[in-house]
């Protein structure tokens, strides 16, 4: 466990890191980024917390069981979205042209319209969920390993 | 007849073999029936007879794997010392072989392309 200054700063910073990660996930279909990148940014915040606090403290907050459920659900949502298009073709972009995320992103300078891309933004969120849970479990497990503990089953 | 496999040079039919095995099995059974009828279970008849010597324990009687084919390994001693030298069990060596084989096949393919 590091000093109080570091811990307080980390507590505040994690909010901004999480927001930035969510931004990258949400804009995945119109700017560089996406589910994995945004998720990895958020997990970097988790790593910061792991460094600031000890791994025991974090372990109390992040239950292995919960992480496992979130990770599996993220993957399931992704696959179900892919299956949703099977009336036409697997991975077919079902929502294209519908009011929900229906538009095609415009080319050219501009802030970009998030409400486009069909199922791709939804898939980005599913992947983001999976990456956050999965990578958090990985870094937590590695941190616990190196302090000589086992993760719970 | 889906059982016959024609390779173009000969044919191969497992059914013939199975019939042969069944015939041999019946013959074996027949010969076995000719044997002694006075065999009794759970008497001294079932014990192992070793020229009157004392029979060793079950664990000692069993020929363990290390003693089988001793002569074979003795003959091929040279070969085995050479081959075991390659099998170091170190991961770095595995990758060295990989890189070596890759380089070798690149050279072979390039040289073969020249001629």
């Amino acid at each position: 466990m590091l000093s109080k200054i570091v811990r307080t700063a980390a507590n505040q910073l994690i909010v901004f890191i999480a927001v930035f990660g969510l931004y990258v996930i949400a804009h995945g279909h119109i700017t560089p980024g996406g589910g994995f990148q945004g998720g990895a940014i958020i997990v970097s915040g988790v790593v910061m917390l792991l460094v600031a606090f000890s791994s025991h403290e974090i372990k109390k907050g992040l239950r292995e069981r919960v992480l496992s459920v979130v990770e599996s659900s993220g993957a399931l949502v992704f696959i179900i979205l892919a299956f949703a298009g099977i009336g036409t073709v697997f991975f077919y972009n079902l929502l294209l042209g519908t009011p929900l995320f229906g538009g095609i992103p415009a080319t050219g300078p501009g802030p970009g319209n998030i409400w486009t891309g069909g199922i791709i933004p939804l898939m980005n969120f599913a992947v983001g969920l999976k990456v956050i849970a999965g990578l958090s479990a990985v870094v937590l497990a590695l941190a616990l390993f190196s302090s000589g503990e086992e993760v719970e089953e | 007849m889906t059982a016959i496999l024609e390779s173009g040079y000969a044919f191969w039919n497992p059914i013939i073999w199975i019939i042969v095995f069944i015939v041999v099995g019946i013959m074996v059974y027949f010969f076995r029936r000719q044997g002694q009828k006075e065999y009794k279970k759970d008497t001294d008849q079932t014990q192992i007879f070793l020229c009157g010597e004392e029979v060793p324990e079950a664990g000692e009687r069993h020929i363990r794997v290390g003693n089988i084919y001793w002569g074979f390994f003795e003959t091929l001693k040279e070969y085995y010392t050479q081959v075991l030298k390659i099998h170091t069990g170190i991961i770095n060596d595995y990758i060295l072989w990989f890189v070596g084989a890759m380089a070798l096949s690149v050279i072979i393919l390039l040289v073969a392309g020249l001629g």
Partner: protein
Amino acid sequence: MDYIPLDFPFLAAALLVGISFYIIIFKKNLTKLIMGVAMLASGVNLFLVALGYRAGANAPIYTDVPEGPMVMSIPQALTLTSIVINVAVLALMLTMVIHIYRHTGTLDSEKSRKMKG
């Protein structure tokens, strides 16, 4: 505009691959070996990304693209996939090395080996 020489990234990629093979083959420490694999992955990724570069073309970003041709985004997609896969590979390797260290008490690839022949 001043472009970087076209073959410069390929040289860097070749250098990375060469150095990482040296590390993987000659360093007996398992952690260093993992670093070698990570470097090899970076070298290959750099090579792939460099393939996607076309002089004078724009990066394929919809919201920030001036007039002119856009590069095909396939090499970038390949690199990204490869990076994601390598994260999984490296995490798995590190976990195994931790277990190896726990069981044998050493990280030397020769001393920690139990199987040979």
